[in-house]
């Protein structure tokens, strides 16, 4: 395999594998958030804000993977 092929493969793997964890995490946050809103619809606003914050934390991990993939593709 040439270095170019390795680079493309590494970028794809970094993004693909790096998205598994955040995907599961965001799913769990969504599950918890919707269940909480279903049980207590009056608190929907506060729950939604906190849910989005928690999603941002989980998503940050995927963003790190994305940055690594972008660096592999365009900088290295």
């Amino acid at each position, binding site marked *: 395999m040439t270095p170019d092929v390795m680079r493309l493969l590494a970028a794809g793997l970094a993004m693909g594998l790096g998205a598994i964890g955040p995907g599961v995490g965001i799913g769990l946050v969504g599950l918890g958030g919707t269940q909480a809103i279903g049980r207590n619809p009056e608190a929907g606003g506060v729950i939604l804000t906190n849910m989005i*914050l928690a999603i941002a934390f989980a998503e940050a991990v995927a963003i790190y993977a994305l940055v690594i993939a*972008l660096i592999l593709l365009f900088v290295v």
Partner: protein
Amino acid sequence: MKKIGTIVTVLIVLLLCGASFYVGAFNAEGAKFALPHIQMAPEVLFYIGSFPVSNTLLVTLGVDALLIVAAWASTRKIRSGDEAALVPTGLQNFAEWMYETMYDASLNVLGDKLEKLPGVITLLFTIFIFILFANWIELVPGFDTIGLVEEVEHHGYTLSEWGPIALIHGPVLEEGGYTLKPILRAANTDLNVPLMLAIVAVVMVQYYGVYYLGKSYFLRFFNYKAFSHGATGIFEFLASVLEIVSEFAKILSFSFRLFGNIFAGSILLAVMAFLFPFMAPAAFYFLELFVGFIQAMVFMMLTASFIAVALSEHGDHEEGHAAA
């Protein structure tokens, strides 16, 4: 009058559709369009002395100017003491609504401490509107697509002249060719802008911690009082030193979160425009509107929650331990 405006708008839209269809489908005879040039560092447009002026710097200053003018225009009536300002209309109404919404959101996080800290709402609201408009301005047509054509040594594209306009399209040339240097590029696709915002946010978190707690704020980082518990105190002390690392991790995650989202968004829009140019990009424009808003909101709310954490007494924490 209104009818003429509608007709002109429809004509312009039809003209743009026709032009994009012509350029996209018929002008490039046999040549497939190449993917746009993607580069992480911002393109330097020109130098003032030895100071490089990049396209993202231009847009950052443009957003600043836009916000300053909007702030001036929306508070003009209030500052002149006009009675009519008591019943807000138009721009002033919109600004007040946005400010109130963000004030309530910060109040949810900081509670009664919001009023005790000078300038905290100004900081949070400035972060919010700057990031929001810096993100949304990317969606204005012409961003990332209009620019200067320049020759490159590697991986360039072929060029065709179309009247006064030069068009860049494929196939990709391995050696030599041309590339596009966009004049306008969204501010947050340059890592320096999110990094600067993150440093400002984290430094202000420390400032408010010291302002509210005084010297005891630094107990968070050097918990020498833990030694009074005996030998296990050394682990508590080491754990508190780790807090310093977490402050730097905040800068890192703040900046990469914003940069990654917006840079990925601009690539997504470019790729979609090349994959399926006619209707699909509209859906992704809507997605980017949403992402731009969410990221501005998240940056502001996270800053507010970090400030709220910095204000909590270290003593509360200790009592919690004792109870457990």
